[in-house]
């Protein structure tokens, strides 16, 4: 491990400790703050154990900050709020799930977004993922195909004050031409293939992340990159520190 990484780790541990030790006044306002901090600490440990299957073995400090800010419990059904900060996916109705926070963290990390980037999400679902991204960028766009779910999430995001998210209910196959091109696209809705219009709407140098698998188990993360010259390449990343052959790490 090089010196830089050691520093990164120390920094993130300090961030976590600070979060845990946030003054009691803040805790009184947000009874979930401690749970959230513990969740982030757990995620960071898991990311570090990723054995290089992911691009990086640490979370960007901006991503950590964003995760610390978004009240995940608001995005899950009331009866499951007790489990909102457990590192697991949860059903949110309409046959949809809110992704496991660990997966949200590494997907956000993979997108490497900057403040001025435009982000598009296909499949809003609970709204948690786009809320995390909205903490990092100025403009975030999201499309949800299931009408009642889209309406519910829209109201929630408004209530939580996410004014930089624009949400549309409809078909995500053709992306959102009006706001294209995008620096980052995340496709969380299941599809038989990656829609060609989305590849087109990805800016040169941009990144697209697609979680692949079933609702409760993400098998891999597909990272599509468009070079500055517009060439497409993909990386298929295992979200877990696992190698298929024994005796090989």
């Amino acid at each position, binding site marked *: 491990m090089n010196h830089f990484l050691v520093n990164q780790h120390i920094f993130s541990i300090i961030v976590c400790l600070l979060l845990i030790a946030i003054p009691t006044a803040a805790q009184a306002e947000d009874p979930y703050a401690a749970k959230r901090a513990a969740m982030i600490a757990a995620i960071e440990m898991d990311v570090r154990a990723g054995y290089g299957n992911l691009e990086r073995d640490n979370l960007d400090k901006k991503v950590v900050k964003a995760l610390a800010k978004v009240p995940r419990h608001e995005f899950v059904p009331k009866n499951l709020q007790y489990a909102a900060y457990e590192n697991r996916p949860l059903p949110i109705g309409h046959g949809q799930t809110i992704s496991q926070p660990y*997966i949200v963290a590494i997907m956000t990390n993979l997108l490497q977004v900057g403040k001025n980037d435009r982000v598009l999400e296909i499949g809003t679902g609970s709204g948690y993922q786009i809320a995390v991204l909205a903490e990092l960028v100025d403009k975030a766009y999201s499309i949800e*195909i*299931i*009408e009642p779910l889209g309406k519910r999430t829209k109201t929630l995001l408004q209530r939580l004050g996410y004014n930089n998210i624009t949400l549309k209910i409809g078909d995500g196959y053709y992306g959102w031409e009006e706001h294209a091109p995008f620096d980052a696209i995340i496709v969380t809705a299941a599809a038989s*293939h*990656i829609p060609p219009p989305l590849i087109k709407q990805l800016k040169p140098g941009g990144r697209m992340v697609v979680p692949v698998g079933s609702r*409760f*188990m993400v098998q891999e993360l597909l990272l599509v990159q468009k070079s500055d010259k517009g060439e497409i390449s993909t990386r298929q990343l295992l979200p877990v520190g*696992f190698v298929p*052959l024994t005796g090989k790490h």
Partner: protein
Amino acid sequence: MKLKAPVYSIAMLSSAMLAYEILLMRLFSIIQWHHFAYMIISLALLGFGASGTFVSIFQAAFSKRFTAVFLINIILFSVSSLSCFLLAQSAPFNPDEILWDRQQSLRLLGIYLLLALPFFFAANAIALALTCFHQSIARIYAFDLFGAGLGCFGIVLLLFITMPLHALLIIGYMGLTAAALAAWELKAERRGWILGALILLGSGMAVIDSRSQLKLSPYKELTQMLRIHGTDVVSEHSSPLGLLSVLQNHAIPLRHAPGLSLSATGEPPEQTGVFTDGGSMTAITRETGNPADYAYLDQVTSAAPYHLFQPKHVLILGAGGGSNILQARYHSAHQIDAVELNPQLIRLMREDYADFTGNLLNTENITIYQGEARGFISATGKQYDLIEIALLDSFAASSAGLYALNESYLYTVEALQAMLKRLQPDGYLVITRWIKLPPRDSLKLFATAVDALKKSGLENPGQQLMFLRSWQTGTLLIKNGPVTVDEINALKAFASTRAFDLDWHPDIQPDETNRFNRLAESYFYQAAEAILGDERAAFFDRYKFDLQPATDDRPYFFHFFKWSVLPEILSLRESGGLSLLDGGYLVLVATLAQAIVTSIILILFPLFFTVKQTPPINTISKGHVITYFSAVGLAFLFIEIAFIQKFILFLHHPLYAVALVLAAFLVFAGLGSSFSWKLLKSYSYQRAIALSLTGIIMLGLLYMLFLQSIFAFFMASAIILKIPLTILLIAPLAFFMGMPFPLALAKLSAAAPGLIPWAWGINGCASVVSAVLATLLAIAIGFNAVILLALLLYGVAWLSFPVKHSAKNASLTK
């Protein structure tokens, strides 16, 4: 007044019960997944076992009020068959969450117990009749088994003409009919009132049934699709092969093109989705008249062979909605033959969607065959330039390991050998599978192809194989002859323009691989090298998933799970490790654990407190009784389950095989059982048991040696010949297998009647466990080994036959 045994009522009840068991397997395939079939066999047996205990405890009280108790149990069966299923399906059970949420295991247990209830009631009625009319046991048995056999066939027919939920109501009515028959056979008082009550009950059930509908898991593909605005189910078609749901959406088009290249620009024309049992979607595509609209079919990995040569005669195994046919047509194949298992899907394409598809299936150079792929391959005499196995199962189910328990006789070494024989010289066999990460399917397929080529006498399999992949699908090309340099170059050109990775061809260099869709390492190439080289065994050993090729004896292509990796995977649960597990397999393991615990609690535990130790007990060893009856219970179902599986290959469809094999076993074991009573009139217990066990062991060994050859000989025959042959093959074995249990019971009733409830209970427990254990063992060691194990168990039974040490060999003479 001396009453006769209510045999007609029993026949009707048994028929309803067996039909219910098979229908439940269908219903669970629709609302959840196929692997719950094993749970259903085991819970039916649990109902039986628990009933054995229950009746033996309350025997005296029940016998006094036989007519009332008999009637009530039948009515309870009837009512619970409908209501327990409706209740069970409304439990929010999600197998995917089992490892996250403890409540899920409880819900599974609840469903298990709830669905065991109807079997419990039906078994109560039958067991009570057997106890109270012991002088006509043989007659009751015969009617019971005849009815059961009829039920197996009846439900298959019923599923062709009615929707599954209506079939459930009809089974409930069969129960009510059995109750009415019983009232008359037993000359019950106030029969008019009873009949009136039954009719009232039936009307109530009809109302409930008409207001109910199947509640599919919210995570099934069909349910997910229906949430999209504008989606409607246009039609539904039910058959024993599956429930077809046809979906259309005019607002948001369906665009099914799995594995489409990232450099593709087009999209499919209008499509209609057809789901089987709420999953495995296949798309029917509109004929636009413009060939360019089908260019997307050239942007997937399965289009590769058409760029190597111009195949004249193409065979597609698994026509589905016709995508592969369109692909062959797009590439100007001269003659296209396609095989499709489901006749309703063919009819749909030919009739309802004839205009939509531009009469695709009625085109001159396209011939569709209704049948199962493996059966077609063995029967056809034709030679093809290209044989293609279509990718019809769904990615989500495949990635969650839900097929782990599905036997498949399409991806075995023997199957590939048979397909290679049907290829013209230099023809290609092409198979496309989903890509999983870490790689599983594609590697096992590669190993299977290598074995098939080696067994066909080819020394350099690596020279005949090529493999390419997109991020989503992988296609293996197996050539009937060495691959040429021109073909390699053509494939390279095809792959690079579509950003597909070429991970194996005979002249491959490591740096050519893993370029476009990059994995952490060049897993496919490395694995191909290892599988073709000397380190194959070591590689299989070190690989954390089971890559051993599937064979006809162990046809579990989709099973990858290794127990040794379980601790590592569980430790990675929170960091995204659960997709490494095969979900289906774990449900089976959970079912086994559940079967063991519940059968002990419900069957054996009550006996501890209630069965009085009668004096003759010291003359027969209790240990022998336990060993004997567990061995016989385990062995019977080991053989039955192994034979169901073996005959799936022969009869080509699981449900037909289950219905026919089960019916044959029931009827002939019943005959054997009633014959065993006669046998005791002239033979001692020991000689009778020796005769039956010798018969089982000899026949079992003979079948292990020759069944494969018999199958091979008749494989191409018509089903009309295969059905009587199946019955003929099973009859003698089942006949002998029907004897050991009643023989030992007879012995006990003469020497130690106090142990009889134990005998029933232990046998019941062993059966419940055995149904699940047989499949787990088959996955690990193959069916022949399971049969061998069963024969050994019969050997153990022989040695432990409960003999009274001092007693003379008293025979059961009356």
